[in-house]
Protein backbone atom coordinates (compact mmCIF):
# COMPACT_ATOMS: atom_id res chain seq x y z
CA UNK A 1 0.00 0.00 0.00
CA UNK A 2 2.73 2.48 0.97
CA UNK A 3 5.63 3.17 -1.37
CA UNK A 4 8.96 1.66 -0.45
CA UNK A 5 10.40 5.02 0.56
CA UNK A 6 7.44 5.93 2.73
CA UNK A 7 7.51 2.50 4.35
CA UNK A 8 11.17 2.91 5.19
CA UNK A 9 10.62 6.42 6.54
CA UNK A 10 7.69 5.49 8.78
CA UNK A 11 9.16 2.24 10.09
CA UNK A 12 11.58 3.82 12.56
CA UNK A 13 9.17 6.20 14.33
CA UNK A 14 6.45 3.51 14.24
CA UNK A 15 8.66 0.95 15.97
CA UNK A 16 9.83 3.49 18.54
CA UNK A 17 6.21 4.49 19.21
CA UNK A 18 5.15 0.87 19.69
CA UNK A 19 8.04 0.30 22.10
CA UNK A 20 7.06 3.47 23.96
CA UNK A 21 3.93 1.56 24.92
CA UNK A 22 6.03 -1.17 26.58
CA UNK A 23 8.60 -3.79 25.69
CA UNK A 24 7.83 -6.04 22.76
CA UNK A 25 9.35 -8.58 20.34
CA UNK A 26 9.48 -8.71 16.55
CA UNK A 27 6.39 -10.78 15.83
CA UNK A 28 4.26 -8.73 18.22
CA UNK A 29 5.48 -5.44 16.71
CA UNK A 30 4.50 -6.64 13.23
CA UNK A 31 1.06 -7.74 14.45
CA UNK A 32 0.52 -4.36 16.04
CA UNK A 33 1.44 -2.56 12.80
CA UNK A 34 -0.97 -4.73 10.82
CA UNK A 35 -3.71 -4.21 13.35
CA UNK A 36 -3.32 -0.43 13.74
CA UNK A 37 -3.02 0.14 10.00
CA UNK A 38 -6.03 -2.13 9.41
CA UNK A 39 -3.78 -4.37 7.35
CA UNK A 40 -3.05 -1.55 4.92
CA UNK A 41 0.63 -1.43 5.84
CA UNK A 42 2.50 -4.65 5.27
CA UNK A 43 6.19 -4.88 6.08
CA UNK A 44 8.60 -7.50 4.90
CA UNK A 45 8.65 -9.11 8.31
CA UNK A 46 12.26 -10.33 8.40
CA UNK A 47 13.44 -6.83 7.51
CA UNK A 48 12.14 -5.56 10.85
CA UNK A 49 15.12 -7.17 12.59
CA UNK A 50 17.91 -5.23 10.87
CA UNK A 51 15.93 -2.10 11.78
CA UNK A 52 15.68 -3.17 15.43
CA UNK A 53 19.39 -4.00 15.48
CA UNK A 54 20.19 -0.59 14.07
CA UNK A 55 18.07 1.10 16.74
CA UNK A 56 19.98 -0.93 19.30
CA UNK A 57 23.31 0.14 17.80
CA UNK A 58 22.20 3.76 17.92
CA UNK A 59 21.44 3.31 21.61
CA UNK A 60 17.73 4.03 21.20
CA UNK A 61 16.54 0.61 22.36
CA UNK A 62 17.96 -2.27 24.41
CA UNK A 63 17.15 -5.95 24.22
CA UNK A 64 17.00 -9.02 26.40
CA UNK A 65 16.29 -12.69 25.61
CA UNK A 66 13.68 -14.20 27.92
CA UNK A 67 11.23 -17.06 27.94
CA UNK A 68 7.63 -16.04 27.34
CA UNK A 69 4.71 -17.44 29.35
CA UNK A 70 4.29 -20.32 26.89
CA UNK A 71 7.94 -21.32 27.46
CA UNK A 72 9.11 -20.02 24.07
CA UNK A 73 12.15 -17.81 24.04
CA UNK A 74 11.86 -14.33 22.68
CA UNK A 75 14.09 -11.33 22.25
CA UNK A 76 12.35 -8.38 23.86
CA UNK A 77 13.15 -4.81 22.91
CA UNK A 78 12.72 -1.89 25.26
CA UNK A 79 12.89 1.84 24.62
CA UNK A 80 15.78 3.68 26.30
CA UNK A 81 15.73 7.31 27.46
CA UNK A 82 17.62 8.34 24.31
CA UNK A 83 14.97 6.51 22.26
CA UNK A 84 12.19 8.45 24.00
CA UNK A 85 13.92 11.74 23.24
CA UNK A 86 14.42 10.67 19.63
CA UNK A 87 10.76 9.70 19.34
CA UNK A 88 9.68 13.13 20.64
CA UNK A 89 11.74 14.83 17.91
CA UNK A 90 10.31 12.52 15.26
CA UNK A 91 6.76 13.20 16.45
CA UNK A 92 7.30 16.94 16.10
CA UNK A 93 8.72 16.57 12.60
CA UNK A 94 5.98 14.24 11.43
CA UNK A 95 3.22 16.45 12.79
CA UNK A 96 4.66 19.43 10.89
CA UNK A 97 4.72 17.38 7.67
CA UNK A 98 1.31 15.87 8.31
CA UNK A 99 -0.34 19.22 9.16
CA UNK A 100 1.04 20.79 5.98
CA UNK A 101 -0.30 17.99 3.82
CA UNK A 102 -3.66 17.94 5.60
CA UNK A 103 -4.08 21.70 5.05
CA UNK A 104 -3.15 21.38 1.38
CA UNK A 105 -5.43 18.45 0.75
CA UNK A 106 -8.35 19.57 2.90
CA UNK A 107 -9.98 17.48 5.61
CA UNK A 108 -10.87 14.66 3.19
CA UNK A 109 -8.14 13.03 1.13
CA UNK A 110 -8.56 14.01 -2.51
CA UNK A 111 -8.25 10.92 -4.66
CA UNK A 112 -8.70 12.48 -8.12
Amino acid at each position, binding site marked *: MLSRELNAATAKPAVLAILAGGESYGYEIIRKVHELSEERIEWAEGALYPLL*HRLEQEGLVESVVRSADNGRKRKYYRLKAKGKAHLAIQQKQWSVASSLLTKLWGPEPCLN
Partner: protein
Amino acid sequence: MFELEQAIKNWRAPFMRRQIYTAIDIHELEWHLRDVIEEALVSGLSDHEAFSAAVARVGQEVQLRTQFESVWNDLNPIHRYWRSLMAEFRGWPSRRAVAFYTVARTVSFITGLVGVLHAMAVGFFLSSPGVLVLPSGKTLNEQGVLISIILALGSAFNLLPFSQWENRWTDWLRLLYSTFVAELLLILLLQAPGSMTIADFLVVFATFAAICTGPTLWMKQVFRLRDHRPDLDDLILAD
Protein backbone atom coordinates in the same frame (compact mmCIF):
# COMPACT_ATOMS: atom_id res chain seq x y z
CA MET B 1 5.80 -36.31 2.52
CA PHE B 2 6.49 -32.77 3.72
CA GLU B 3 8.63 -32.55 6.85
CA LEU B 4 8.08 -29.23 8.61
CA GLU B 5 11.15 -29.42 10.86
CA GLN B 6 13.38 -30.36 7.93
CA ALA B 7 11.96 -27.50 5.87
CA ILE B 8 12.70 -25.04 8.70
CA LYS B 9 16.23 -26.43 8.94
CA ASN B 10 16.74 -25.94 5.19
CA TRP B 11 15.41 -22.40 5.42
CA ARG B 12 17.83 -21.67 8.27
CA ALA B 13 20.92 -23.18 6.60
CA PRO B 14 21.89 -20.20 4.37
CA PHE B 15 21.83 -17.89 7.43
CA MET B 16 24.30 -20.18 9.21
CA ARG B 17 26.80 -19.83 6.41
CA ARG B 18 27.21 -16.07 6.74
CA GLN B 19 29.00 -14.26 9.48
CA ILE B 20 26.76 -11.18 9.25
CA TYR B 21 24.12 -13.07 11.26
CA THR B 22 24.85 -13.68 14.93
CA ALA B 23 23.50 -16.83 16.53
CA ILE B 24 20.84 -14.80 18.26
CA ASP B 25 19.81 -13.13 14.97
CA ILE B 26 19.16 -16.56 13.48
CA HIS B 27 17.24 -17.68 16.56
CA GLU B 28 15.18 -14.51 16.46
CA LEU B 29 14.25 -14.99 12.80
CA GLU B 30 13.39 -18.63 13.41
CA TRP B 31 11.20 -17.81 16.42
CA HIS B 32 9.35 -15.35 14.21
CA LEU B 33 8.97 -17.92 11.43
CA ARG B 34 7.60 -20.44 13.92
CA ASP B 35 5.10 -17.89 15.28
CA VAL B 36 3.81 -17.23 11.77
CA ILE B 37 3.63 -20.97 11.01
CA GLU B 38 1.66 -21.54 14.19
CA GLU B 39 -0.73 -18.75 13.29
CA ALA B 40 -1.25 -20.29 9.82
CA LEU B 41 -1.76 -23.79 11.24
CA VAL B 42 -4.42 -22.50 13.63
CA SER B 43 -6.23 -20.95 10.67
CA GLY B 44 -6.46 -24.42 9.13
CA LEU B 45 -3.60 -24.54 6.63
CA SER B 46 -1.57 -27.70 6.12
CA ASP B 47 2.09 -27.90 7.29
CA HIS B 48 3.32 -27.27 3.78
CA GLU B 49 1.00 -24.31 3.13
CA ALA B 50 1.74 -22.82 6.55
CA PHE B 51 5.48 -23.08 5.94
CA SER B 52 5.26 -21.50 2.47
CA ALA B 53 3.10 -18.67 3.79
CA ALA B 54 5.51 -18.03 6.67
CA VAL B 55 8.57 -17.98 4.40
CA ALA B 56 6.78 -15.56 2.08
CA ARG B 57 6.14 -13.26 5.03
CA VAL B 58 9.45 -13.48 6.87
CA GLY B 59 11.67 -13.82 3.79
CA GLN B 60 14.59 -15.96 2.70
CA GLU B 61 18.24 -15.25 3.50
CA VAL B 62 18.91 -13.81 0.06
CA GLN B 63 16.06 -11.31 0.49
CA LEU B 64 17.19 -10.15 3.93
CA ARG B 65 20.93 -10.11 3.28
CA THR B 66 21.24 -6.51 2.04
CA GLN B 67 19.59 -5.03 5.12
CA PHE B 68 21.58 -7.18 7.54
CA GLU B 69 24.74 -6.37 5.60
CA SER B 70 24.19 -2.65 5.96
CA VAL B 71 23.91 -3.04 9.76
CA TRP B 72 27.07 -5.20 9.72
CA ASN B 73 28.98 -2.61 7.69
CA ASP B 74 28.21 0.08 10.24
CA LEU B 75 29.73 -1.90 13.12
CA ASN B 76 33.15 -0.78 14.32
CA PRO B 77 36.03 -3.07 13.24
CA ILE B 78 36.55 -4.58 16.71
CA HIS B 79 32.89 -5.44 17.09
CA ARG B 80 32.88 -6.90 13.56
CA TYR B 81 35.93 -9.04 14.32
CA TRP B 82 34.35 -10.30 17.53
CA ARG B 83 31.15 -11.22 15.72
CA SER B 84 32.98 -13.01 12.93
CA LEU B 85 34.89 -14.96 15.59
CA MET B 86 31.59 -15.97 17.17
CA ALA B 87 30.20 -16.94 13.76
CA GLU B 88 33.28 -19.09 13.23
CA PHE B 89 32.45 -21.18 16.28
CA ARG B 90 28.93 -21.79 15.05
CA GLY B 91 28.52 -25.51 14.66
CA TRP B 92 31.48 -26.49 16.80
CA PRO B 93 30.76 -29.68 18.64
CA SER B 94 31.72 -28.63 22.15
CA ARG B 95 32.84 -25.74 24.30
CA ARG B 96 36.05 -27.66 24.97
CA ALA B 97 36.88 -27.65 21.26
CA VAL B 98 36.24 -23.91 21.09
CA ALA B 99 38.42 -23.32 24.16
CA PHE B 100 41.23 -25.48 22.78
CA TYR B 101 41.13 -23.80 19.41
CA THR B 102 41.08 -20.33 20.95
CA VAL B 103 44.10 -21.15 23.13
CA ALA B 104 45.94 -22.74 20.17
CA ARG B 105 45.41 -19.74 17.94
CA THR B 106 46.29 -17.23 20.63
CA VAL B 107 49.46 -19.06 21.68
CA SER B 108 50.61 -19.64 18.10
CA PHE B 109 49.91 -16.05 17.22
CA ILE B 110 51.77 -14.62 20.21
CA THR B 111 54.75 -16.98 19.95
CA GLY B 112 54.97 -16.27 16.22
CA LEU B 113 54.93 -12.53 16.85
CA VAL B 114 57.49 -12.72 19.66
CA GLY B 115 59.64 -14.98 17.46
CA VAL B 116 59.60 -12.49 14.60
CA LEU B 117 60.41 -9.56 16.88
CA HIS B 118 63.23 -11.53 18.48
CA ALA B 119 64.55 -12.54 15.08
CA MET B 120 64.49 -8.93 13.93
CA ALA B 121 66.42 -7.91 17.01
CA VAL B 122 69.20 -10.50 16.71
CA GLY B 123 69.17 -10.83 12.93
CA PHE B 124 69.20 -14.45 11.95
CA PHE B 125 67.37 -16.78 9.60
CA LEU B 126 69.79 -17.80 6.90
CA SER B 127 72.93 -19.01 8.58
CA SER B 128 75.28 -21.86 8.89
CA PRO B 129 75.14 -24.51 10.24
CA GLY B 130 71.42 -25.11 9.72
CA VAL B 131 68.81 -27.82 9.52
CA LEU B 132 67.42 -27.17 6.07
CA VAL B 133 69.80 -26.87 3.14
CA LEU B 134 68.36 -24.82 0.31
CA PRO B 135 69.08 -25.32 -3.41
CA SER B 136 71.27 -22.19 -3.45
CA GLY B 137 73.48 -23.75 -0.80
CA LYS B 138 72.20 -21.50 2.02
CA THR B 139 70.81 -23.12 5.12
CA LEU B 140 68.00 -22.32 7.55
CA ASN B 141 68.90 -22.63 11.19
CA GLU B 142 66.79 -24.40 13.80
CA GLN B 143 65.42 -21.26 15.37
CA GLY B 144 64.45 -19.88 11.98
CA VAL B 145 62.61 -23.06 11.03
CA LEU B 146 60.87 -23.29 14.39
CA ILE B 147 59.69 -19.70 14.36
CA SER B 148 58.57 -20.00 10.75
CA ILE B 149 56.50 -23.07 11.53
CA ILE B 150 54.88 -21.45 14.55
CA LEU B 151 54.14 -18.37 12.49
CA ALA B 152 52.71 -20.43 9.63
CA LEU B 153 50.53 -22.37 12.07
CA GLY B 154 49.51 -19.18 13.80
CA SER B 155 48.40 -17.61 10.56
CA ALA B 156 46.72 -20.87 9.50
CA PHE B 157 44.69 -20.93 12.73
CA ASN B 158 43.93 -17.25 12.47
CA LEU B 159 43.01 -17.14 8.81
CA LEU B 160 41.08 -20.37 8.56
CA PRO B 161 37.49 -20.17 9.65
CA PHE B 162 37.17 -23.93 10.10
CA SER B 163 33.43 -24.15 10.46
CA GLN B 164 32.84 -22.24 7.27
CA TRP B 165 34.97 -24.39 5.06
CA GLU B 166 32.78 -25.36 2.22
CA ASN B 167 34.74 -28.07 0.53
CA ARG B 168 38.04 -29.84 0.70
CA TRP B 169 39.72 -27.65 -1.94
CA THR B 170 39.12 -24.37 -0.17
CA ASP B 171 40.57 -25.97 2.99
CA TRP B 172 43.87 -26.61 1.32
CA LEU B 173 43.92 -23.39 -0.63
CA ARG B 174 43.61 -21.48 2.62
CA LEU B 175 46.29 -23.57 4.29
CA LEU B 176 48.67 -22.91 1.39
CA TYR B 177 47.73 -19.25 1.44
CA SER B 178 48.52 -18.81 5.12
CA THR B 179 51.82 -20.67 4.69
CA PHE B 180 52.63 -18.34 1.83
CA VAL B 181 51.79 -15.28 3.91
CA ALA B 182 53.92 -16.51 6.81
CA GLU B 183 56.90 -17.19 4.58
CA LEU B 184 56.61 -13.89 2.77
CA LEU B 185 56.42 -12.07 6.09
CA LEU B 186 59.56 -13.78 7.31
CA ILE B 187 61.49 -13.00 4.18
CA LEU B 188 60.41 -9.39 4.17
CA LEU B 189 61.12 -8.93 7.84
CA LEU B 190 64.30 -10.90 8.26
CA GLN B 191 66.19 -10.87 5.04
CA ALA B 192 66.49 -8.81 1.90
CA PRO B 193 64.16 -10.56 -0.57
CA GLY B 194 67.07 -10.98 -2.97
CA SER B 195 68.93 -13.29 -0.64
CA MET B 196 66.65 -16.24 -1.48
CA THR B 197 66.26 -17.71 -4.91
CA ILE B 198 62.90 -18.86 -6.25
CA ALA B 199 64.00 -22.47 -5.77
CA ASP B 200 64.86 -21.65 -2.12
CA PHE B 201 61.46 -20.07 -1.64
CA LEU B 202 59.65 -23.11 -3.06
CA VAL B 203 61.59 -25.53 -0.86
CA VAL B 204 60.85 -23.51 2.28
CA PHE B 205 57.21 -23.19 1.23
CA ALA B 206 56.83 -26.94 0.66
CA THR B 207 58.48 -27.69 4.00
CA PHE B 208 56.25 -25.30 5.98
CA ALA B 209 53.11 -26.47 4.19
CA ALA B 210 53.99 -30.12 4.84
CA ILE B 211 54.61 -29.46 8.52
CA CYS B 212 51.40 -27.42 8.89
CA THR B 213 49.28 -30.08 7.20
CA GLY B 214 49.62 -32.49 10.14
CA PRO B 215 48.19 -30.26 12.87
CA THR B 216 45.49 -28.97 10.54
CA LEU B 217 44.34 -32.46 9.60
CA TRP B 218 44.51 -33.45 13.24
CA MET B 219 42.32 -30.54 14.32
CA LYS B 220 39.74 -31.38 11.69
CA GLN B 221 39.69 -35.02 12.69
CA VAL B 222 39.68 -34.41 16.42
CA PHE B 223 36.81 -31.99 16.22
CA ARG B 224 35.06 -33.90 13.41
CA LEU B 225 34.65 -30.67 11.53
CA ARG B 226 34.68 -32.09 8.04
CA ASP B 227 31.13 -33.38 7.99
CA HIS B 228 29.73 -31.40 10.83
CA ARG B 229 26.58 -29.52 9.95
CA PRO B 230 25.55 -26.95 12.54
CA ASP B 231 22.21 -27.42 14.23
CA LEU B 232 20.08 -25.06 16.26
CA ASP B 233 21.45 -26.37 19.56
CA ASP B 234 24.96 -25.54 18.41
CA LEU B 235 23.95 -21.95 17.96
CA ILE B 236 23.40 -21.58 21.67
CA LEU B 237 27.13 -22.17 22.03
CA ALA B 238 27.89 -18.90 20.35
CA ASP B 239 25.34 -16.82 22.25
